[in-house]
């Protein structure tokens, strides 16, 4: 397992989760397109196809960016369970190293689950914030296992 185990009582409003650094390579994007069943070359893998779509270069599929952002939580605490992830893509995500992080904005008990709500974002050095959104995770509670 990657991270330490966090419980509901360990987390406070304003706590930061991450950062998780991911190096998005051409090979990883091509492998993702294969899993997805998206024939290549396409705007995710080819410079020429990306230019045709008026993009600065090959981009990362939205659903791959989402999968990477979800990893922030599973890497942070293996007992965290993702309940909701809602993302807005502000700029194309290109094949460059990114940083993913989150800040805790709310905690609550709901239907017997201990929920932690976060603002989550992905950024890179060149373009700043690329993706932003909200995540809700559930954590176990030591007081009420």
């Amino acid at each position, binding site marked *: *397992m990657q991270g330490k185990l966090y419980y509901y009582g360990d987390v406070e409003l304003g706590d930061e989760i991450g950062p998780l650094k991911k190096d998005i390579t051409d090979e*990883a994007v091509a492998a993702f397109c294969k899993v997805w069943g998206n024939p290549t070359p396409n705007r995710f893998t080819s410079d020429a196809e990306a230019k045709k779509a008026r993009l600065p270069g090959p981009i990362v599929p939205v659903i791959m960016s989402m999968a990477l952002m979800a*990893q922030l939580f599973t890497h942070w605490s293996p007992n965290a369970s993702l309940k909701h992830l809602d993302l807005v893509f502000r700029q194309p995500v290109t094949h460059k190293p990114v940083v993913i992080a989150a800040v805790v904005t709310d905690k609550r008990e709901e239907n017997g689950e201990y929920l932690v709500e976060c603002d989550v974002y992905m950024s890179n050095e060149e373009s700043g914030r690329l993706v932003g959104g909200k995540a809700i995770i559930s954590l176990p509670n030591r007081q009420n296992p």
Partner: protein
Amino acid sequence: MVLELEYDRSLLGKEHQAGPFEVTEELVRSFCSAIGETNPLYTDKDAARKAGYQSVLAPPTLCPIFIRGESIPDIKLKFGKLRFHAGQMVKPLAPILAGDTLMASSHLKEVYPKTGRSGTMVFIVWETTFTNQRGDKVAEVQESYATRE
């Protein structure tokens, strides 16, 4: 001035079925490998069994890879030339395991314009519900596409 949008409104709320989609161990392994996921619950059957699951779990964002053109048809929107994927939401509702078979049901949720500094964009929102072979809802996914002039 209110923008009158022209598109195939008969698609609003109409369900489009897609599937079955087999969640195989190989698919889960390949998905994890592509995103660098190493959580043993997704990659190691023994670890998953120790945690009480019959097989490896699928990562919580696996389902959107099954949504393709056949499940979300063209709405024939007469606005803009450039379309891009602007938003994505996933709400996992129950564990998805290798060996599960999923069905998807998608509908056009809404189409609306939004005007900002860069001009007017039209957002197209599709909502998809995934169910497993037992009929349990396992995930909801929402995808937003923006079109600009």
